[in-house]
């Protein structure tokens, strides 16, 4: 894909305007370079290039969003809306990481969904009760360890579903996605102190909910 002549033409015709420091430092990364090239082609009206980005990131975005909105259909809607929004705002991309940009849009879509859910409260997330799917275990894992790990993940996911949306979003972005406080603050539109507070309170709430199952996590 990177060697295609059309790609070269697109890059040569309209070089990227790199605006922030991160994009200059990350542009050496082949993944980042690929994303930027695809994004630039998508900006030029190439729908296939945008759909390539979709294919690259859809599973990852879904995995992120489904932690924040643990309902399969709602999470799918959020991801779809995030890609719609990204396509609408291609011209507004200002450099940096395409992945972070997409994550940010998806997180905002998830937060919108959560707000809508608050206005129209319905059933708690039903998928958390669904134990039909479990993550695949490694080949080297023995049955006991696998069972313990599975149970730990199950109760932790269930507990995550019971804390507040804001706390869950902050914890997922910090612990799972590895964003730092400032990035989360920028994503969610709150102050850095609020992000810290949400993470701390969220962990305390998780500990409360898991108080009778903490043996799964100790040691």
């Amino acid at each position: 894909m990177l060697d295609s002549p059309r790609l070269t033409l697109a890059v040569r015709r309209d070089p990227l305007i790199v605006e922030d420091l991160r994009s200059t430092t990350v542009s050496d990364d082949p993944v980042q370079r690929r994303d930027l090239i695809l994004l630039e082609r998508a900006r030029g009206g190439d729908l296939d290039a945008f759909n390539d980005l979709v294919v690259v990131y859809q599973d990852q975005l879904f995995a992120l969003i489904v932690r924040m909105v643990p309902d399969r259909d709602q999470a799918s809607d959020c991801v779809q809306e995030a890609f719609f929004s990204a396509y609408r705002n291609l011209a507004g991309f200002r450099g940096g990481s395409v992945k972070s940009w997409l994550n940010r849009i998806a997180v905002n879509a998830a937060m919108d969904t959560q707000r809508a859910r608050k206005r129209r409260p319905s059933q708690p997330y039903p998928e958390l009760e669904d134990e039909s799917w479990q993550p695949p275990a490694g080949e080297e894992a023995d049955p006991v360890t696998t069972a313990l790990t599975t149970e730990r993940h199950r109760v932790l996911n269930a507990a995550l579903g019971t804390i507040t949306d804001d706390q869950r979003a902050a914890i997922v972005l910090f612990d799972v996605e590895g964003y730092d406080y400032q990035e989360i603050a920028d994503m969610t539109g709150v102050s850095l102190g609020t992000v810290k507070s949400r993470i701390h309170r969220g962990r305390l709430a998780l500990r409360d909910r898991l108080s009778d199952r903490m043996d799964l996590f100790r040691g």
Partner: protein
Amino acid sequence: MPNDSDVRVTSHERHDPMLVAALAAGDLAGPDRDQAIALTQSCASCASLHADLQAIARATASVPPPIAAPRRDFRLSPEQAASLRRTGWRRLVPSIPLRTATTRRLGVGLATIGLAGLLIGNVSFSLGSAASAPAAAPAGGGYEQAPQAAASQPAASTAGGTESLTVRGSANGPSLAPALRTAGAPDTMGSAPSPSSGSAYFGTNDAASSRGPGVAGFPSDGGGGTSKAEPLPARPSAETTPIGGSRPLNLVFGGAIVLGLALLIVARRRGSAPL
């Protein structure tokens, strides 16, 4: 006297779990960190909480998503892409180089200024015209009072115009009511009727001309060439309020409200689709 376990429970309840949580997250420094470490060293419950929070953080970092991969293909169809493309003025929105928070603040500020300006401006105009209304209103025998009241409002006249109040032909006093319209004689007042006509009027030339045709003529019985006059409902401020001067301000403030609301909408859209 309480036993040791009671004391320990009570003292732990007084401890700040947020401090321990911050220590577990590695967010503390300086005296706070020292205090939190001392807490975990002196209180077994705090130490347990600290260890549990760290274990939860480790477990959260490795937890898989609760649901497997999506069943949906999120690629955009050409029809969807066509419907999502920006057209018209929407194409300009992303090019506004403002952050969402700035846009929102600017929008709120503009809308507030516009609203306040409209309110203050119009209330002050209403008050000003209300002050002149008793004299200018024709209802309730206002005809006799009109000249005096009008004479007491020179400032209002001059504020919107250029001339002082003029009263002529006061012998025909009752005909001085300000709210008479000269039907069929549109420019009776605006064209500055001849004093020799014996008619009486007050007002300023520019105010009269700004009223346009057919407004604010109040000829005497003799008429100054006016054959027919019909009384109108009260138009108390028509003679003295410089309405012509307030319209641009109203437009400015109204524009500020519209612009502010537009910025708020843009900020909201950006909030759900960060650029």
